[in-house]
């Protein structure tokens, strides 16, 4: 459920009194809600032993939440009713399954806002709920689609009055709004508004309008009202600046309306990019020409140098003398003194093979792979004048070039359907390279360990914790989103049997003196059992409610609707109570009914809750010792139902 927070003090401890129908904050005592709808949920047992909810579970929470949210948004009653109708439709189509109800409710409300045209943004709703706006948006879109409701598009003009009011323009509010509206319409004509957040446009329009009327509103003020980022606002302003309208003066703007329309800004940006690309292409072409010239000069110089320098080693010399193309490149490599000779040899050798294959095969598909290195060889020709050039070898791509050529052109035939791996076209060598050897594997393992040390440590701690808890016997699987499953109502012929069954169900610890418990029908329980029952009660409590402190004093509170989780406790409770035949003054409502049917199937009708809330006597287990009249059963049946003060009195 949505976390209920008190508006007065901000506390989360809300008492719900179904008898009086209101919700009260236990911190400051302010009444949060009146007239809580009392339609309750009935649980009946199925043939399979599980229980199912019967009744309009929609109404109880749904309506209340809708009203709650709607009031915060200041929606009128008609809107709220419509929203509630949407919600009912959604429920009937099972759209609430698997979604947080808060999301669905927010989506219904937003749908109403859209259809009515109120100036509420999805952002507002997400602010209220502290939910990611995109998550809400998804739910909303789904809802609109499923309910086949076409939400009319948002017009930024709708937001103007709202934001203008927030910006406090005083008497000139109306004028500024009008100006902003005109600006917006202008923006629409200029194609600024497609694909943009309407709030951003509003912000820009209002800012300009304010300045036009001599109001000093800084960008910061505007963005705090409009809820966009500063850079967004600036962008919109610059875009608007680009339009011809921005050149008009204030008076002119009010009178004249320019006829021409502009292109959308993203379109112009795209055009600019295109133009840049074209420029680049032209430039590169020119560059190539220049390179060509330079390389010819280069060749001339090379030849000169070759003839003048001492003879290179035999193998290299042979290599460098093959072919004309190789000459260029290998001589380029040869010239480079900074390079390792071995590297040179390898590079030139590889390149020789490479080029031979190129020339020999002349494949089209490899041309692309080949073209790049080839062109890559050209700029190096240029760069060699400047400094050490990155050869294929030094770049480390010589291998991949080779593999590119060797393994590319075979088209994979269809693999046969029986699962055999068709190995055609797969180069094993390359794949071998994907597998690290021993040393590399070790290094990598260490690196990974270091990276994920945090996570690994957490895992270990978690395991240790689980192991420890297992030893102590109180380990309970804490699954992340576990909803408390409904316990089947205990069917017993006698009260004693009921107790036994309940104990079995709840797996109560060994600290209880069971034999004494069985005799509890007659007695009111002794102090001994109190203490025994106490830790047990606490564990039982802990199981059921994690939110409240485990050491809470439990009360025999049969039927609050504070949390669904606590209801199973409730169901067990009255059985025990009835069984115990406590002469405790019972709460006016259901408890009175319970003794009348001690052996009945437990029906979870829990609209009432009993509040002795005057005594905020919480978290004090020791106090039990001083209260002789509290029965063991009461202890066992823990109730974290708000204040526990005087359990014994008054019930």
């Amino acid at each position, binding site marked *: 459920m949505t976390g209920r927070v008190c508006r007065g003090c901000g506390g989360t401890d809300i008492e719900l009194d179904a008898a009086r129908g209101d919700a009260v904050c236990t911190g400051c005592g302010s009444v949060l809600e009146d007239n809580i709808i009392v339609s309750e949920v009935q649980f009946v047992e199925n043939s399979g032993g599980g229980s199912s909810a019967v009744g309009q579970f929609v109404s109880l929470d749904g309506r209340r939440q809708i009203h709650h949210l709607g009031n915060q948004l200041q929606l009128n009653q008609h809107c709220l009713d419509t929203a509630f109708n949407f919600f009912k439709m959604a429920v009937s189509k099972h759209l609430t399954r698997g979604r947080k109800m808060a999301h669905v409710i927010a989506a219904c409300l937003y749908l109403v806002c859209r259809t009515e045209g109120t100036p509420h*943004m*999805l*952002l507002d709703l997400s602010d209220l709920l502290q939910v990611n*706006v*995109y998550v809400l*948006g998804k739910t*909303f*879109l789904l809802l*609109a*689609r499923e309910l*086949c409701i*076409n939400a009319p*598009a*948002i017009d930024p003009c709708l937001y103007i009055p709202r934001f203008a009011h927030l910006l406090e323009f005083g008497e000139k509010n109306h004028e500024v709004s009008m100006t902003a509206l005109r600006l917006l319409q202008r923006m629409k004509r200029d*194609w600024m508004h*497609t*694909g*943009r*957040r*309407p*709030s951003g446009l509003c912000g820009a329009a209002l800012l300009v309008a304010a300045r036009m009327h001599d109001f000093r509103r800084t960008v910061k003020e505007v963005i705090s009202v409009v809820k966009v980022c500063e850079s967004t606002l600036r962008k919109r302003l610059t875009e608007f600046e680009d339009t011809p309208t921005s050149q008009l003066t204030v008076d002119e703007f009010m009178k004249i309306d320019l006829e021409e329309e502009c*292109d*959308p800004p*993203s*379109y112009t940006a*795209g055009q600019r990019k295109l133009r840049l690309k074209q420029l680049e292409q032209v430039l590169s072409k020119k560059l190539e020409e220049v390179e060509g010239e330079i390389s010819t000069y280069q060749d001339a110089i090379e030849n000169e140098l070759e003839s003048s320098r001492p003879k290179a080693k035999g193998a290299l010399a042979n290599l460098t003398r093959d072919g004309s193309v190789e000459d260029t490149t290998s001589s380029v490599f040869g010239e480079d003194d900074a390079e390792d000779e071995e590297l040179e040899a390898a590079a030139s050798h590889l390149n020789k093979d490479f080029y031979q294959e190129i020339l020999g095969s002349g494949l089209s598909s490899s041309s692309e792979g080949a073209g790049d290195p080839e062109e890559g060889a050209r700029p190096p020709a240029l760069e060699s004048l400047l400094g050490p050039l990155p050869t294929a070898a030094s770049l480390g791509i010589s291998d*991949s070039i080779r*593999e*590119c050529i060797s*393994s590319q052109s075979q*088209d*994979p035939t269809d*693999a046969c359907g029986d*699962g*055999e*791996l*068709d*190995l055609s*076209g*797969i180069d*094993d060598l*390359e*794949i*071998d*390279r*994907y*597998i*690290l050897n021993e040393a*590399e*594997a070790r290094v*990598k*393992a260490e690196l*990974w360990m270091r990276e*994920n040390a945090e*996570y*690994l440590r957490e895992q270990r701690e978690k395991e240790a914790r689980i192991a420890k808890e297992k030893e102590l016997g109180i380990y309970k699987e804490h699954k992340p989103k576990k909803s408390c499953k409904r316990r089947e109502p205990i069917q017993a012929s006698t009260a004693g049997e009921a107790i036994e069954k309940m104990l079995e169900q709840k797996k109560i610890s060994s600290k209880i003196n069971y034999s004494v418990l069985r005799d509890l029908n007659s007695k009111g329980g002794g102090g001994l059992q109190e203490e025994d029952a106490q830790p047990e009660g606490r564990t039982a409590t802990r199981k059921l409610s994690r939110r409240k402190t485990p050491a809470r004093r439990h009360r025999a509170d049969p039927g609050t609707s504070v949390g669904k989780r606590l209801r199973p406790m409730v169901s067990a409770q009255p059985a025990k109570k009835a069984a115990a035949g406590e002469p405790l003054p019972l709460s006016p409502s259901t408890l009175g009914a319970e003794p009348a049917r001690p052996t009945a199937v437990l029906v979870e009708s829990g609209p009432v809750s009993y509040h002795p809330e005057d005594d905020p006597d919480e978290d004090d287990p020791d106090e039990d010792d001083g209260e002789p009249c509290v029965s063991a059963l009461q202890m066992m049946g823990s109730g974290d139902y708000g204040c526990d003060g005087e359990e014994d009195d008054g019930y």
Partner: protein
Amino acid sequence: MDADSDVALDILITNVVCVFRTRCHLNLRKIALEGANVIYKRDVGKVLMKLRKPRITATIWSSGKIICTGATSEEEAKFGARRLARSLQKLGFQVIFTDFKVVNVLAVCNMPFEIRLPEFTKNNRPHASYEPELHPAVCYRIKSLRATLQIFSTGSITVTVLKRKYTLPTPLDSEQGPT
């Protein structure tokens, strides 16, 4: 604008997503340690392996299911998937290449005109949905072809098709021109 000229526009397939199974349990830790270009995400229990030759990123689960993304054509996707299976075989797993299926194809296309999104949405009510607060594009769904198109105001369109057969050009045919 008539629809005929749309077909002549270039549609570029940018991404093909495919899945296949290896029908054997894969030890992610081993892959992570011995593979040269893998990322091991232990918290979610998968390994990302990137191949260079067909540029492919594969997500590998220990159950043997592998999802391959990043290929630029269906053949390439299949090729890459097979390479991947081969490399897993070399790592020592008994890999059987089964259930290969292309699940998703993404393509991009550019219209030479800009599009008015609000009016477009109004005219194509049930199919198109536009939420400027959430996303700058109109989301146009064609149920019969299982295609989703994202239409931007600049005229560029992203098409995602759930694969049945190769019907990529047709979503554009049925599209209406700008208002």
